[in-house]
């Protein structure tokens, strides 16, 4: 165990000095928490931007989709581009539709299921991409206070050991060690609070976007189902006539 020097009473008590006087365990905890805070803020900013972008994309796509434009044309314009959100769901569904029709669909029921499956897959992928790294925010929000508390406990423990060594119970001797240890909890809370708030906000936003995309997928599925019926029904009638 390395010896711990207590801050001289009335010495430098600025944040930097407190950090510098701390033991290596506490320092490690503080640095780790600072890293977690930086990373969680990076995620928050990234997600916030991507969600905003996604919302814009959704709006624009919906506008285009309901503008009465031919789906074939829309598919052609989107298929060679990198798409996201509703666009990718639309592209996935249209690709499946095209493949089925190019090779000649045998059953309209099978086609419907396949298209639904493809859209589900695209939706899941989109949501996965949307919600990736939000888990980190959740863990930071849940565990950063505990990590900070751990740093504080270790810091107070060592400072009490030092106080026992110095054989003085003067508050001026006791206080700096405790203040330095409490800095770890402060940093932990500093990292955890924005993470928790952002996590709640971002998951709610992601849920919003997901429900919008699901709604679109359902609608598009309904449209395609109608189309399938319209395309397959004459065939079926013809078959009946032949029989």
């Amino acid at each position, binding site marked *: 165990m390395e010896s711990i020097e207590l801050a001289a009473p009335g010495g430098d008590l*600025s944040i930097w000095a407190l950090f510098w006087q701390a033991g290596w365990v506490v320092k490690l905890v503080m640095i780790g928490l600072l890293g977690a805070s930086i990373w969680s803020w*990076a995620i928050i900013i990234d997600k916030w931007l991507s969600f905003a972008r996604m919302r814009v994309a959704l709006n624009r796509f919906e506008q285009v989709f309901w503008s009465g434009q031919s789906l074939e044309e829309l598919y052609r314009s989107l298929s060679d581009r990198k798409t996201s959100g509703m666009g990718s769901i639309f592209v996935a569904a249209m690709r499946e539709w095209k493949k089925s029709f190019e090779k000649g669909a045998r059953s309209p029921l099978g086609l419907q299921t396949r298209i639904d499956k493809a859209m589900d897959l695209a939706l899941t992928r989109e949501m996965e991409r949307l919600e990736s790294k939000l888990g980190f925010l959740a863990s930071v929000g849940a565990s950063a206070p505990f990590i900070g508390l751990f740093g504080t406990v270790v810091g107070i423990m060592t400072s009490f050991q030092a106080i026992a060594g110095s054989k003085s119970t003067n508050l001026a001797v006791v206080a700096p060690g405790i203040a330095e240890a409490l800095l770890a909890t402060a940093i932990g809370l500093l990292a955890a609070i924005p993470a928790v708030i952002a996590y709640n906000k971002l998951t709610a936003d992601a849920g919003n976007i997901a429900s919008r995309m699901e709604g679109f997928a359902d609608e598009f599925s309904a449209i395609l189902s109608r189309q399938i019926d319209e395309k397959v029904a004459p065939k079926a009638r013809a078959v009946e006539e032949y029989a």
Partner: protein
Amino acid sequence: MRAGLATSVTLHAVLIGFGIVSLQAPRAFEVADVEAFPVDIVPVGDISQVQQGEKEAPVATRPTPKPTQRQDPVENAQKVGEADTDLKPPPTPEAKPRPVEQASEPPPSPKPQPKPVEKPVETPQEAKAEEVPVPTPEREPEPQPRQEVKPNPAPEPLVAENAEGESVKLPPAAPVPQARPQPPKPQIAKAPERKEAEKPAAEQKQASRATKDDQVLDQVAALLNKEKASGGGAKRSTEQAALGASQATSGDKLSQSEMDALRAQIERCWNVPAGALDAENLRVSVKFKLDPSGAVEGRPEIIEGGGSGVARAAAESARRAVLQCAPYNLPSEKYSAWADVIVHFDPTDMF
């Protein structure tokens, strides 16, 4: 993601930088420096009631001061010393004569201004040294100058200047007024000390004649006074010194044994009335005054008990007891403690 990370790092850097710059050590609470100091309660008896002895001697059971060289006993001497009679001032070493010699030397030297500081200090010593051993011859002329000095302060400086020019003897007193520009103050301070020196000045008649008289007086005093100018007592001691003060201070309180002695003395004379033997609650308190010789002054006063019948008989018997044993043998130095005595008589204690 890269944009987010970059933004986050910048944000944290800014925040930490701001924290380091602005979140300096918080201002310390301004608390008045109140230091607790321990208080011990020490019985004052240790200080006020000390036996006679030496301050640096080992503790001994018997109070014995430092052994003296002379062994001839002196009656009623309280202070230990080598003197013939008990003297009030403490024994002083041979330091006294020296300043007198120094005082007489400076006058001829022509330095009036630097000296005044020394002279006022030395002249009183001279006066004291001469005063103590010879009380009678000097006391007579003293009262006159004192009365006369106070009403007219102005003539003093004038005479002082004259004296400086006139004689060699006078100068010790002369520079004093020069050093003090305020006339009334030095008078109040100096009047008792200057006695001999100022006498002529105050009288304002013939300064030189007065001083001559004084010189004669001094010579007479010197002849009369064979005793050393030092004080000291006349009590002799032969044994090794014990821890104590130069003088025994017994304190005001009667010691337990002295109280017991008083109680026993009164009890011996107390005839409890026969009827009171079985009567409980026949307590009687008697208050009486004693004079320094130990005799009862006036009539003992019954302050408690003695209501009627047996009780009155008991009270009377108590009063009789006090009067019968009359001259009480109590330490005279504690007279203030036993000038007024209240004695409680309780028949149940007797049997």
